């Protein structure tokens, strides 16, 4: 009986309260979407096992297109499919999706505002052992700069599932940044994802951490560390990086002496830049950034890499303490 309960739980496809890699939640979300929406089509570039589009390809072979190792062609083809009313999800690793095919995304998808969803996996340093060639640390910057592009970085499986559904409903190009490694559940069970709406856990009198993706769970840990030392820190999950939730940021800037941004991405052009751009114009307050500091990554287990590059709760807490001094 107990084991059957367990099974019931793992089959619960909204992933509420479950630690799961966001790419796995994506694969599951696609499968469900495929059933309810006949216009969903999926494209991949020879990585369907890794991006988790394989489930969809098995269930709906006529609506799945493996384009081979040709990312530029994949983006153009997805654009063409969208012109016939389909809702294409095109997937590969983030570094290839946004890097190799950037100009196709600019010219074909964004300039014509096509209804194509780019669900890219293996973003950030937690790709791990494959090393720098496969660790995308620039994709948020590359996508955020494009007019009309929506950029979403879900923090856990539950949020991913909802973000994929929301992206499918939304009209226009959307970039969804997903990861390879398992991440803890961080969103409350009653959470409802909305494009452009941040989730504020709390605002801190001393500091508020604005995080995205895997850094949200680290931020929540940092808040605990700091509270033990009498420092009041808040946490915001800024899962939509474009359009940015300015209201949430203004509230944080009003209350906190310091904003710390945290992302598994270069501090140049990513979440930290987006937050700093907004606050410098609208509510100047000190902004300090945690992220990759103008460097490539390297091979290693994800946990060790997070340590090596300072993408940890301990480093966030330390940085906040130092900045408040």
């Amino acid at each position, binding site marked *: 009986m107990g084991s059957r309960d367990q099974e019931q739980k793992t089959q619960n496809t909204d992933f509420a309260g479950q630690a799961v890699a966001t790419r796995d939640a994506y694969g599951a979300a696609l499968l469900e979407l495929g059933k309810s929406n006949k216009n969903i089509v999926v494209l991949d570039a020879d990585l369907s096992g890794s991006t988790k589009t394989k489930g969809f390809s098995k269930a709906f072979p006529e609506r799945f297109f493996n384009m081979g190792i040709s990312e530029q*062609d994949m983006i*153009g083809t997805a654009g063409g499919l969208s*012109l*016939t009313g389909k809702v294409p999800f095109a997937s590969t690793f983030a570094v290839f999706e946004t890097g190799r095919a950037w100009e196709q995304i600019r010219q074909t998808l964004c300039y*014509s505002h096509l209804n194509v969803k780019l669900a890219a996996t293996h973003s950030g340093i937690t790709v791990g052992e494959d090393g720098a060639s496969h660790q995308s640390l620039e994709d948020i910057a590359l996508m955020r700069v494009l007019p009309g592009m929506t950029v979403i970085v879900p923090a856990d499986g539950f949020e991913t599932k909802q973000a994929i559904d929301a992206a499918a409903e939304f009209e226009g190009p959307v970039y969804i940044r997903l990861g390879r490694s398992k991440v803890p559940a961080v969103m409350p069970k009653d959470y409802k994802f909305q494009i452009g709406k941040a989730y504020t856990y709390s605002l801190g009198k001393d500091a508020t951490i604005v995080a995205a993706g895997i850094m949200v769970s680290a931020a929540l840990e940092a808040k605990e560390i700091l509270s033990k030392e009498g420092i009041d820190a808040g946490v915001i999950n800024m899962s939509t990086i474009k359009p940015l939730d300015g209201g949430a940021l203004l509230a944080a800037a009003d209350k906190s002496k310091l904003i710390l941004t945290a992302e598994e991405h270069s501090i140049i052009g990513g979440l930290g830049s987006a937050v700093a751009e907004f606050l410098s114009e609208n509510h100047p307050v000190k902004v300090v950034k945690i992220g990759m500091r103008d460097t490539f990554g390297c091979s290693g287990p994800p946990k060790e890499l997070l340590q090596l590059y300072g993408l940890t709760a301990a480093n966030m807490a330390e940085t906040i303490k130092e900045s408040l001094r």
Partner: protein
Amino acid sequence: MQSILNSRDISYLKERAREMRIEILKMLEKSGSGHTGGSLSATDIVAALYFYKMKHRPDNPDWAGRDRFILSKGHAAPLLYTTLALTGYFDKSLLDSLRRVGCPLQGHPSSKMLNGVEISTGSLGQGLSIANGIAMGLRLDKNPSRVYCLLGDGETQEGQVWEAAMSASHYRLDNLCAFVDLNGLQIDGRCCDVMNIEPVGDKWRAFGWHTLSIDGHDMQAIVDALDEAEKVKGKPCMILAKTVKGKGVSFFEGKAEYHGVTPTKEELELAIKELS
């Protein structure tokens, strides 16, 4: 309304192409900037598409039953605009506003700004992938519409063209027919000097395409090739059209320098005389 324009009458089609060339030159003279040579080399092909082969409804550009045309060599925008004007998508007077601020006739076609433009192009090498995607989507919908795509010969130096060549054949897109406008020239000179694309027929055949070679200014040959393309099953069709850049205006013909140069007032007068 079914388009009333379409005809297989060769002299009618030639007359349309002649009119188109005159309008192209007029609009380019007026704008003072834009691409002359590559618009004139593909005029006969596009005339045959819009005045003979393609099902389309100028009064209902989004009609689901239409055949689609993707101008992959987007710099031939004056050719597309002229065709759309002369088939009735918009008033001919709009042609005078090419490349003006706020005008829907952008330097390169913008689908968000002008009805009848299926997709924005201008960055070379991307159109065939888009055409493939449309062909796949139409097939999923069991929509019998066909997709046409026009590429430049220099454009086929882009790697993405060959990715798309491979996938069109892999997915057996027999509802797709593409043209390469083989005018032999690109910006920096002759294709064979800049970056040789020959043997072009062997390449497309090797990629699995049903490949035809025609004289791209022989209206009868274009019309026949379009008819043949429609009968091909299980493969996309490539029509390699040998053309002359700047065709129809003696002093523009075969000159790489006239790729992106527009006629002066005097040149326009002379050109119209030659075309009349």
